[in-house]
């Protein structure tokens, strides 16, 4: 196991270096200048401003400068969104709110989704199954923008149960955005669990368990659910990364100081160091989660062997 993880860690570093390299050069192909008022400056003056951010150097020099900084954990400074602000600090300060609503949304969505999926599978082809499927379809198909706006209008403005927007009332502020984010994992979990459960419930060992006199509850949770989890874990991992690292739409609608919105904005305005910083941050997150998911497979289902049977 330790050897396996060690090997994976080395792969992770290589993957990261490749991602950073590709992003760096792709980003430099982006049209437009990071100097916001470029249109107002003469070419000489613009050259002076660019030199301040090292943008006048040849591309390979810029690349090695950046990678060398990266090795030391330095993500550089923002060029135009927060002039001179340290990108590491920016990411750290923006990560909290994104992670909080993402985590809450993920937990809420997964729990409700799993329950819905299980009930639907156990009561296949009844009204319970149909309404659970309907909820899953709605959750997948309504864009989060519409859902977030509706939540804000009805639960915030009309009923006044929760703050309309802004990040200042602690947990209460996080409720609506979390619900908005929960819809997607909810729908996904419900669909996967239902499909898998139906398949698992018809397999031989379930029949055996029933024949041995296990109660319906025991069969459902102890035998069927565990096996139905595998495909869910596969999709939930990467989805968790997407949600925990913030959603442009939900953060924007609820005016939350999160990181998802920064990522998109930085590309729009060519703020190179923020593009790089957020991309690397997301990549690290994703790679680590994939590793965790792989390890989880082994725990959930011992039949899946991680190290390819060498040991």
């Amino acid at each position, binding site marked *: 196991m330790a050897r396996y993880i060690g090997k994976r860690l080395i792969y992770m570093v290589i993957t990261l270096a490749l991602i950073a390299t590709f992003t760096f050069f792709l980003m430099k192909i982006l049209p437009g200048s990071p100097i916001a008022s470029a249109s107002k400056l003469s070419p*000489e003056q613009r050259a*002076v401003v660019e030199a301040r951010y090292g943008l006048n150097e040849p591309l390979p020099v810029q690349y090695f400068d950046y990678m060398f900084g990266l090795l030391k954990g330095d993500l550089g400074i923002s060029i*135009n969104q927060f002039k001179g602000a340290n990108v590491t600090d920016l990411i750290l300060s923006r990560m909290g709110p994104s992670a909080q609503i993402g985590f809450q949304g993920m937990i809420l969505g997964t729990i409700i989704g799993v329950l819905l999926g299980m009930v639907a599978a156990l009561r296949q082809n009844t009204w319970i199954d149909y309404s659970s499927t309907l909820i899953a379809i709605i959750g997948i198909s309504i864009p989060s923008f519409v859902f977030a706006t509706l939540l804000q209008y009805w639960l915030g403005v009309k009923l006044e149960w929760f703050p309309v927007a802004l990040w200042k009332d602690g947990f209460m502020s996080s409720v609506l955005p979390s619900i908005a984010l929960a819809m997607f994992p909810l729908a996904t979990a419900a669909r996967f669990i239902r499909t898998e459960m139906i398949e698992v419930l018809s397999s031989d060992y379930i029949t055996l368990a029933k024949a041995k006199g296990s109660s319906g509850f025991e069969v459902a949770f102890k035998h069927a659910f565990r096996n139905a989890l595998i495909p869910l874990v596969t999709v939930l991992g990467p989805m968790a990364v997407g949600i925990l690292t913030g959603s442009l739409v939900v953060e924007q609608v609820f005016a939350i100081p999160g990181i998802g919105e920064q990522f998109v904005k930085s590309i729009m305005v060519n703020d190179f160091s923020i593009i790089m910083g957020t991309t690397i941050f997301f990549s690290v997150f994703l790679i680590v989660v994939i590793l965790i998911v792989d390890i989880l497979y082994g725990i959930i289902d011992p039949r899946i062997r991680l190290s390819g049977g060498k040991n």
Partner: protein
Amino acid sequence: MKNSKLFWLMSLVLVLSAFLAACGGGSEEGSETPEKEKEDGTSTEAPAGEPDAVQELNLMEGAEIPSMDSAIAEDSVAFNILNNVNEGLFRLNQENVAEPALAEGEPEISEDGLTYTFKLRDANWSNGTPVTAQDFVFSWQRAIDPATGSPYGPYMMAGTIKNATAISEGKMDKAELGIEATDEKTLVVTLERPVPYFMSLMAFGTFYPQNEAFVTEKGDAYASNSDNLLSNGPFVLTNWDGTGLKWSMEKNAEYWDAETVQLEKINVDVVKEPGTAVNLYTSGEKDRAGLSGEYALQYADNEEVIKELEPTLFYLKFNQERNGEKTPLANENIRRAISLAFNKQDLTDVVLANGSLPANYLVPTEFTFDESGADFREVNGDMNEFNAEEAKKFWATGLEELGETEVTLELLGGDSELAKKMDEYLKSQLEENLEGLTVNLKAVPFNVRLELDEAQDYDIQNSGWGPDYQDPMTFIDLFVTGSSHNLMSYSNPEFDKLIEQAKGELAQDLAGRWDAMAKAEKILIEDDAAIAPIYQRGVMSLQKPYVQGIVSHPFGGDYSYKWAFVSGKE
């Protein structure tokens, strides 16, 4: 008097608000009166002018603060806050006329109009140290120093303040800049050429002073959050962590004119989604919300709506030379045909519907006034108004001259919903009125458009410009031959000469200069049809009736809260 028109407007507003108050009261008996409206009705009935005990405003901004360093700032959010927490030699007053602020009275101006001697009033920074003439010298030199990397420093100073151009290009030491502190309270500024609008420049953020000791002590951390900032204006910035979505402005007790300032605190949150801003306004959390796009249409008849005209002008640029080859737009009749062929009134009323005005001019209306207070627009009036019949005639002549029956042109524009909608409309108008014309739309993000503009890689471009100082020149000199904003190969020696005269020999002959600029505008639009004006931007906002005295400005910071107060909220 420059102010007469505004005074007249103000009194009209007062009379109108009295009417509105009466109406508001009456609507209480109306059949469909939700609770919200009742509250508003009563609040407008309260006598405006009696400030409440609690003086706190809750406002929103559309973006974060990129930098609070006046030498580095280049965006509207930062300039707006700078205008409220800092102050320069002059400040735009409630009538948008630059009046002495840190300067004690008008400066002494030398005969040749090149040397200004300012006396400073006794004023303090928010840490209690006095604002000195040296603070100005320090900040101006810092803004022009290439090492600072200031975008607006060179832009505002080059060609205006003595030696600024050479210093900004690293060819001269910053100590050579035309600014000198002869003693603690005396500042002597030397200009490159006489600048008739110099006072209004002094109200612009880039020319604010900075406390040398403080800036040096903080080093790179200067202006990185509200603790690393000093104010010398009506308010102090607080609760700003440098990258966050919220901040406050609190009354500055050290401000020399603190007794005028009534607001104790302004709480600002960044809300980027227009719908969210409206919801926060409706739920009563915020006192003012901008209305854009569909929200402008939806709330157009709401009685809490205020409309403001901005001095920002949008126009079509006709590129006469692309990739070294002449475009069909090099033909004057083709250009004129296009500039006459779209209905601007319908565009502003139906497509934009946000209080914008159709523009048949370049220099915006309600922006600059001559000595007698007459709007620059009264001199030149309207040019190239929509006229489909005329357009068709010019089009036919133009095609004949080109020897073509069909022309395909690319229209380059922004990628916002509104910009796309507008360009669709222009395309349909042009293709409908000009037979044989095909318009291909190209929608790109702002910085990509700048790049294409610079490479002169477009046929027609939907472009906009806002002023950087209060003078028609900020618009007109964009189009002189070889200007870094021309970028469409327009060149008319007569036009260039008028601009040169206005900047040179006529600089101190105000009437003659005004006349030269008016003639130049006429040549540009009417004679040459070099550009086709489209509209002057208007903005609509919702504002609670208890909010009083927010002043909006045509350039520099968008708003002043110095004179604002809350009346009738409770």
